[in-house]
């Protein structure tokens, strides 16, 4: 009688298709996965511990480095959380809100482009990768013009924005969103009707609606399992409730469904940016809360109040009253939330980040067990994980 043994192998932490330093210990029977155990933490930088020792303004650059493919969303979640803690949410100027929405949606496009590029490359469709990175480069250029950095943007501030949009950027954005749906058509032309692509992802990584809720999936991964939930629409922030957009939902529950709806999300993001650009009016970009928001440089050098406020904010920081709040935002990957506890001092007493990828990765074993090892690569791609956010 022939006997078979199972084999245990390591995949990662330095494997090109694990999207960073993810280690998976796989127990295999031939090519079939019996058990997959993710090991994480290789990129742990102690963001939460560090934040307890910095003032609220100083924490902001740490948040860029969580999900580095969507830095502005992390910034946004954090500044909204601090604004909520301070109780100044309704004092944010209209222009700052609108620019935040524009940047958030540009970031969503940017993040989804990396997802599509890497997902397709992992499965073997290399052309898409090159096209996606071409478009992503446009977004990066705009990012650089607006915030001064390609990835670690650090552009939003508690109370508004760090700087106004540069001249001529609006036209560039309009050109970009006018061309983007055509680019999405190109990707679809390369993939959607492609028999190999279909065979690889249809019926792959299936997770039912109940299981997805139980394991805590959020964002497109949850909507791909038929749960109609989007924080932008259901718990609106930054005035998202005044925009007209659709939340794509699919009850396919597989990688194909998630692929289709992420592409739709990119088209919806273009619509949101177009509406936001239409309503962009000149105006202040920072709330009029002098004890929290840094004064403009000309006030710092010309007025005594400006100088004192600048000095106090930089040296002491501001002190929210004691309390605790939670603020979640719809990151391209799912819900990113910040739980802030204040003890009345200038530093967060506790900051807990709810990372979308961390929770989504938890679903990986149940989505790939029983399938082939090649399907695991597609599951990692469809979960759209970023290790910077998982490990914090």
């Amino acid at each position, binding site marked *: 009688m022939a006997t078979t043994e199972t084999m245990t192998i390591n995949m990662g932490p330095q494997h090109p298709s694990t999207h960073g330093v993810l280690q998976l210990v796989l127990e295999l029977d031939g090519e079939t996965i019996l058990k997959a155990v993710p090991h*994480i*933490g290789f990129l*742990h930088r*102690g963001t*939460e*511990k*560090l934040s307890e*020792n910095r003032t609220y303004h100083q924490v902001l650059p740490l948040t860029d480095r969580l999900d580095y493919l969507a830095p502005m969303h992390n910034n946004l979640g954090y500044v909204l959380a601090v604004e*909520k*803690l301070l*109780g100044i949410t309704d004092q944010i100027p209209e222009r700052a809100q609108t620019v935040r929405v524009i940047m958030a949606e540009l970031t969503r496009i940017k993040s989804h482009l990396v997802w599509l590029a890497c997902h397709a490359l992992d499965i073997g469709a290399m052309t898409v990768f090159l096209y996606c990175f071409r478009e992503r480069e446009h977004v990066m250029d705009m990012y650089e013009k607006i915030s001064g950095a390609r990835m670690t943007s650090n552009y939003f501030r508690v109370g508004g924005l760090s700087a106004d949009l540069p001249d001529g950027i609006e036209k560039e954005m309009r050109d970009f969103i006018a061309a983007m749906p055509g680019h999405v058509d190109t990707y679809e032309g390369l993939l959607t009707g492609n028999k190999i692509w279909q065979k690889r992802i249809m019926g792959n990584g299936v997770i039912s609606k109940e*299981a997805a*809720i*139980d*394991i*805590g999936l959020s964002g497109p991964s949850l909507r791909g399992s038929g*749960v109609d*939930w989007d924080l932008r629409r*259901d*718990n609106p922030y930054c005035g998202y409730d005044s925009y007209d957009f659709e939340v794509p939902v699919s009850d396919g529950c597989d990688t194909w469904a998630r692929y289709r709806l992420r592409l739709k999300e990119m088209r919806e993001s273009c619509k949101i940016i177009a509406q936001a650009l239409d309503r962009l009016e000149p105006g202040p970009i920072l709330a009029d809360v002098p004890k929290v928001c840094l004064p403009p440089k000309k006030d710092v050098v010309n007025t005594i109040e400006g100088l004192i406020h600048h000095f106090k904010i930089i040296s002491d920081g501001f002190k929210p009253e004691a*309390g*605790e*709040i*939670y603020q*979640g935002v719809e990151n391209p990957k799912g*819900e990113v*939330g910040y*739980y802030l*506890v204040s003890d009345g001092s200038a530093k967060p*007493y*506790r900051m*807990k980040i*709810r990372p979308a990828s*961390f*929770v989504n990765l*938890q679903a990986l074993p149940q989505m790939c067990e029983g399938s082939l090892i090649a399907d695991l690569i597609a599951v990692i791609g469809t979960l759209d994980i970023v290790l910077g956010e998982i*490990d*914090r």
Partner: protein
Amino acid sequence: MSVQTTVENLKAKFAAAVESVTEFRGETTVVVKKEEIVAISTFLRDEEGFNFLTDLCGVDYLGQSPRFMVVYQLYNLETKERLRVKVGVAEDDTRVDTVTGVWGTANWHERECWDLMGISFNNHPDLRRILMPADWEGHPLRKDYPLQGPGRDPYQGRLS
């Protein structure tokens, strides 16, 4: 059904277990006894529709009693409402019953809470460290754990 109704129902059903209810910036926080957390979680999920556990974490209130709090951020996918439930954990008995049976997502969150805060969870299926190396000593997010890590001089600030 609003969060207020949920809190009323919770008080009616678990009168002895609800310790306090606070409102801050429109968010409701309920502190309950840790012995009842599984029963209360099950009740909130099944009867009140809080079927989504957004997050779970520990907070260290060093010098206060109880020293730790375990915080559960709940979400209702039907009504899109949030509720925060907290349990106090004393320093000499840092154990709470696991809620992995109620929300599967609690598994990794509780591992992280054990890893970084040193709160262990009874009956957890797989309570290992998750972010720190397996042989790490201590729990970094505790307030008495040095920022620079063990065995190093404290950070003096930037000298230049």
